[in-house]
């Protein structure tokens, strides 16, 4: 696991605590919506704001498919840092 992944996972975890959806662990296959974290559209929007402010870009605004899982969010930043 890269340090970048750890950092992004912590950012997501901090955000979830703030919106009162904190979890002890955030496995990669945990769904962001539906039965997973059950983020509504505005919470997802807020997460995108947090990620953009922290890392300068975010997977929700990148123009591709919306991330569906925690792993999709991490993969977006991993891909960005992979040479």
């Amino acid at each position, binding site marked *: 696991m890269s340090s970048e992944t750890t950092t992004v996972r912590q950012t997501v975890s901090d955000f979830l605590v703030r919106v009162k959806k904190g979890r002890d662990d955030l496995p990669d296959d945990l769904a962001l919506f539906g039965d997973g974290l059950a983020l*509504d559209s*505005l919470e997802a*929007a*807020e997460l995108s*704001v947090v990620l953009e402010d922290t890392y300068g870009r975010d997977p*929700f*605004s990148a123009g591709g498919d919306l991330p569906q899982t925690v792993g999709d969010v991490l993969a977006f930043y991993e891909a960005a840092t992979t040479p």
Partner: protein
Amino acid sequence: MIELLRAAAEEAPHRVALASAAGVTTYAELVARAETAAAELRARGVRRLAVLDPDHATVWALLAACSLAQVESCVYPVAATEETVAELRERLDHDLLATTRELPGPGLLCPDELWAGAEREDGPVPDGPRPLLVLTSGTTSGRPQAARHDWSRILRVALRIRPTPEQRWLLAYAPNQFAGLQMLLHVAAARATLAAGRSFQPRDGLEAMRRFGVTHASGTPTFWRFLLAELRTDGEPPPPLEQVTLGGEAVPSAVVEALRATFSRARISQLYAATEMGLSISVRDGEVGLPLSVLDETDGEAELRILDGELWVRSRSSMLGYYGDEPVPDDGWRATGDLVEVVGDRIHFRGRATEVINVGGVKVHPLPIEERVARVPGVALAHAHGRPNALVGQVVALDVVLGGGADADAVDAAIREEFAGDPPAHRPRSITFVESIDTHGGKLLRGRTS
């Protein structure tokens, strides 16, 4: 304008009309300059004149001269860059600009030339059109428009003001703004004294209040917020104001309460005005918003009504149209762009039509949010705006200036807690702590997104 100055000068020629760091100007001096300049403008065949000068006495005298010589005047903002001046002159067809600034191009006239002559136009004020242009603030569009007015309409209300020569008013608005013009008119009609600071910044306003013994002051809520902040840091007693007036923006109740606590002897009033209206409506009950009864008032000068949540106005002093546009009916109803809501027996302002934040189709007004954020301990100033977002179009975003010593994390948490029970679209989703928030003409810069 000239008739007001003449009346004041006739009563007390040596009374100070304007006091500033540059010195004092009496009413007799203003009238002498205005009448000499009017004769010179007529002699030169000038019909339209732009004015750009940092000296308020010069601007005041030139406005009066133009009102006497039937020359259409237009005051430019002193802070305008060379490019802005060139753009305004091109767009408004101003061939002649009275200014002491060194600017490129032809058609420049030093104001001193206008009062160097021997002739004075000391006859009665002529009948017929006496036009003037007043620039809008341009905070919404980013580019000021020029509202066409006539002195005979603008002066309707000022001519009814009773003399109160003991009053000393602070000039907290630039004379190119409608509110600044209103201040010149009010002080001249009241035959009172105007005091100007080195700039229109609250710090300089506070300094001028103390230096010139200001008794009355009118400014935007933003101006007063910053002035209160200056007072807190300098530790000096507040000036003994008798009148505190707020206008130009929606008035948050927290600001009214803070002003009442600070200036305990002062009467607190609110002005509702717009460049296009040509007059202001004053509310003196110290409560936020306008009383609902203003909708029933028909004093012949202005009427208000609410249509689809927006305030509309019909005024006998209203503008005749924007320069370059078709004339508008002089007795027609006009949308103000101010969104309002009736709460009990008050009309509360919710923001400008152009400032509404669209969160996934839900319209959110920024002003009530700002007002609540301003009450959160540790917040000195807040600006709510729409932040573009790929998922929902916009989210509510806040720029927040912290009060002295406040902890950003604690304030962030307190703001989020304040809105936790609100509908999801109304909750701030982005909070940024900033050193300062931009203002323009004493108002928060609005209509932007980040």
